[in-house]
Structures are given as C-alpha cells and as structure tokens.
C-alpha cells in the first residue's frame, strides 16, 4: 500500500499522522496525571479508562508511522524533542497549579472543557478520516470511533451538568471555555502541509471540519441557553508548526525520564 503513495502523498500522510498521534499522546499523558485526584472514585475509574483508550489510539498512529519508515513507536512517542512535536498547544497545557505528586491543585473545569472540545473535534476528524484515501488510516478511524463515542458521551455529561449547576460551577466553566477557545484554532488546523493533506484526500479541508464542529457544539450551547461565539485563536502558539510551551518540555522530561535513563535498553 505504501508503495502506491507518491513522495508528496507520503509526506502528507506522515505529517497528518504525527498531528493525530501527538495530540492523543499528550492529552492522555495529562489525563494520567489526574489519576487518584479526580472529583470522585467513579470518575477516577472512568477517566483513567478514557486516558488509556486515548493512549491506545496514539499507539496505533505511531505504529502506522513506524510502518511508513519513521523510527520505532517508542522513540517517536518518548524521544522526540518539543520542537519536533505536532500536537495542538491546548492539549499540552498543564492541568492546573502544582505537580502531579506535590500539591496538585488541578482545575477540573478546564479539564472537562478541554476534553469536551477535544472529543468533539476528534469526532469530526475521525468521521472524515473514515473516508480517507489512505486505507490504514481509514481502518484506524473506524476502530477509534467506537471508543470515542463513549468518551464524547462522558464529557458531554460533565460539560452540561456543571454548566447547568449554575453558581460557582458555571462561573468556573465559562472561564474555562474562554481559556480553551483562546487556544482552539490550533486543534482543527492541519498545519504547514494542509494543502497537500487535503489534495491527497486524507481528510477534509480545515474550513469544512470547522463548520461541522461549530454545528455540533452550537446545538449543545443552544440547549444550555449559553451564547456560542465560536471565535478561536492560537494564543500560546501553533503546535502544528512546532511552536510549543514550556509545559510541553516539562511533560516530555517526566514522561521520558525512565526511557532516557537508557534508551538502548529493553524495558
């Protein structure tokens, strides 16, 4: 199958796969930092299941990259430097104040909004990827969409429940929505090779993805009687172009700590 790709198409597939893999990998990492700290034990179980699924999705994409001649999947996930990463900046930002082992004062509202918006965006992309011209990617999308369905359902319940609760919860949620929207442009961006990606019919163009996203999320905001502006920026950088924050560098140091202690060893 790979030999059927032109050089330009192969470049485009690789670029898109890095975006998809790095997105799922880093948000799953942020989810794993929440372990043991979620608002209640039932949520701890559900959230860690979602993070685990998401890490599984990242592993599938890294595997596809490995098969396209990139380095092995553990190297790709653990050893690439911050400026080589293609994930959206929103997904790398810390969960809140503190460290996952010391005085974590994580922000549940930000986590809910970030995961809800991300799951909605992922859903739009996955639906489009099911029709991808690159069959391994289309097959991966079919598998991922089955789990994503439940993730989206989970975050929708949290999103609507906390906004409906009013009071402090609603205040925190609206603040988190503003924070997420300020970074969200990056999430639905296809990066520097967007033209090639679309030309190769790997996924629909950005503007169409964005339209679907707006339509889906607007319906939810309507039900909640909250105005939806849908104006996104990339406040802290454009991750698709390799621009990242200090939060990502710190995360990479932590998640690669054991790996880097002996990259040649079998763990």
């Amino acid at each position, binding site marked *: 199958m790979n030999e059927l790709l032109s050089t330009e198409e192969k470049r485009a597939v690789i670029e898109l796969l890095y975006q998809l893999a790095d997105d799922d990998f880093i948000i799953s990492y942020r989810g794993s930092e929440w372990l043991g*700290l979620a608002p209640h034990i039932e949520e701890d179980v559900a959230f860690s299941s979602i993070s685990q699924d998401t890490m599984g999705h990242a*592993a599938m994409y890294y595997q596809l990259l490995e098969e396209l001649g990139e380095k092995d999947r553990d190297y790709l996930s653990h050893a690439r430097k911050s400026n080589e990463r293609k994930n959206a900046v929103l997904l790398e930002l810390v969960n809140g104040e503190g460290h996952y082992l010391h005085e974590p004062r*994580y922000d549940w509202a930000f986590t809910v909004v970030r995961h809800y918006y991300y799951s909605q965006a992922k859903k739009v992309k996955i639906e489009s990827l099911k029709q991808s011209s690159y069959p391994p990617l289309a097959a991966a999308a079919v598998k991922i969409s089955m789990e994503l369905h439940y993730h989206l359902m989970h975050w929708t319940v949290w999103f609507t429940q*906390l906004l409906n609760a009013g009071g*402090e919860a609603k205040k925190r949620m609206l603040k988190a929505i503003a924070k997420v929207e300020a970074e969200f442009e990056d999430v639905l961006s296809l990066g520097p090779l967007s033209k090639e990606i679309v030309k190769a019919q790997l996924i629909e163009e950005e503007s169409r993805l964005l339209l679907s996203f707006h339509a889906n999320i607007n319906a939810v905001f309507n039900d909640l009687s909250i105005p939806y502006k849908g104006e996104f920026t990339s406040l802290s950088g454009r991750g698709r172009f390799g621009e990242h924050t200090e939060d990502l560098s710190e995360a990479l140091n932590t998640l690669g700590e054991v*790996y880097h202690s*002996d990259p040649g060893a079998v*763990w």
Partner: protein
Amino acid sequence: MVSKIINHSINKDEEKILSFMARIEAGEKIEADDWMPDEYRNVLIKLISMHGISEIMGALPEKEWVPKAPSLKRKLGIMAKVQDEMGHGQLLLRVTEDLIKPLGKTREDIMEDLFSGDLKFHNVFHMEAPTWGDAGLIGWLVDGAAIITQTNMLSASYGPYARALKRICAEEVFHAQHGEAIILALAEGTEAQKAMIQDSINRWWESLLMFFGPGDAKAVGTSKQDITAKYKIRSKSNEELRQDFFTKYVPRILSLGLTIPDLTMHFDDQKKEWIYRQPDWNRFKEIVRNKGPKSQERLRLRKLSYENNEWVRSALSSGSENEAG
C-alpha cells in the same frame, strides 16, 4: 414483669445469634439485608473498608510511575492496572456502604475516617517507590501477596464480599503477570536494570513480610484473626499465608539470580516450614498509624484532591436536587 420482658428479649437475641451461627456453620452466605450480630457487622466494616481504602491509597505509589512508564506498552499496561485498582476500591466501598447504612453512615464518613487516621490502610502503601523497579515489584510481589490473602477469603461467609473478591482476584492475576513481565525484562536487561530490581527487593522485603500481619496478637497487642475465623470470613492464619507466599515466591526470586535480604531464610525440612527473620513489628504499628515514610504525603494528596474538588461535588448534589425537585 419487667425482668421477664428483658429475659424474653435476651432470649430472643440469643436465638437470633444461634440461628445466625447455624447458617454460618452450614456454609450459607449472609446478605446485606440479613440480620447479623454487631460483632460480625463491625468486623466486616473494618476489614472491607480497610481493604477498599487500601486499593485506593495503593494507586498512589504506582501513580508516580504511570506517566513515566518507559514505553507505550508499559504505559498502557500500568494505566490499565491502576485503573483496575481504583475499580476495586470503588467496588469495596460500595460493599462497605451497604454495611454502614444502618448505622447512618456514608462514604463521606469513610473518607473522614481516613483523614483522621481512624481508618487505616495497608502497610505497603505507606512506603516509598523511588524507581521503575518498584513499579514492577509492586505488581509482581505486592499483588502476588494480595492474591494469596484474598484467595483465602473467596469463600467468605459474607456474600457481597465473596463476590467482589472473586472479580478482584481474577484481575489481580493479570496485575501479577504485568508486574512479572516488567521484572523479567529488567532481569534479562543491563547490569543497571538488574541492580534496580535487587535494590527494590531489598527495600520491599520487610514490608512484604508485614503485609500478612503479625503471627499472633503478642506481636502487636491485638488481632482479629480469631473473630474472622469464627465467622468463616477467612480460613488460614496470617502465618500460614506468609508461609504460602514464601513457598510460591522464594524459588522464583532466586531463579532470577536475585537474593533475599535475610541470611537466615531457609526451608526447614523437618518442621516443614520456612525459617525467616521477623520484621520489626513495632515499626509495623508505627507505619499503619500513618507514620510511614510516605503516609503523610499520600494522605495529603488524597485530602487535597478532596478539598480541591469540593465545588464539583457540591455542583453535582445541587444538580441532583434540582432534578429531584
């Protein structure tokens, strides 16, 4: 007249206890809504709430290693494992909630008891886990030890606990395999990796012996072994379980080229038992009183997340009130 009534009610209670004990002796399962003596209820609450909260506190030493696991496969494995542990905690807290309900208590009380130190958690989860070797060792030997103690209660007289344990034990077997896989990779690895496991065994050995509890009440002053045996909640004694652990794991540890940090350790062919150096039981008492090396730090994590998410719980309860209204 009054004394007659009292006598009558004493007799009635005695009758209830006798018929309860007859059910226990006959191997019947007791269910949450059945009448049970206070002593039985109390010993179950103590045992199951401690087990449940230990599963939850037990996620914390491993939590340290979840984000740091050195490959995608290990990351997925340890994420699944710790998720299971939280799931066990949830399952056991549900069983406890049914037992404490008639006493007017809820899960909030369980958490409060944990923070106040009234509810203790397992000695092993007060200890440090400073290397990736510890992440493997916890899965391999701590979960291995847990399988031995929990299998011993699979036929417990209290039905809801026995059923929860059945599911828990099935998952613990996978955890032990996950831990063993990490350990095997290290044992077949570089000199530094081998040294890492030996270092973990040296660090954890005494805690593993303590895991089964003291041999008799003399060591620490109290023991619930007799009560749990009387009600057929468990069958083997602490010492028998510890011996089972040695029989299963000492040969495996040695076969990996590792040593056990106890030169007196050997199997006595005549006595048919393992001879070993007793851990420091005074230290054990200190540890479970939340004076272990990591007790306060881990309690702080739990407490901080409880306080930090107070607004979420309150939003959820106001939401359910709105719905109910």
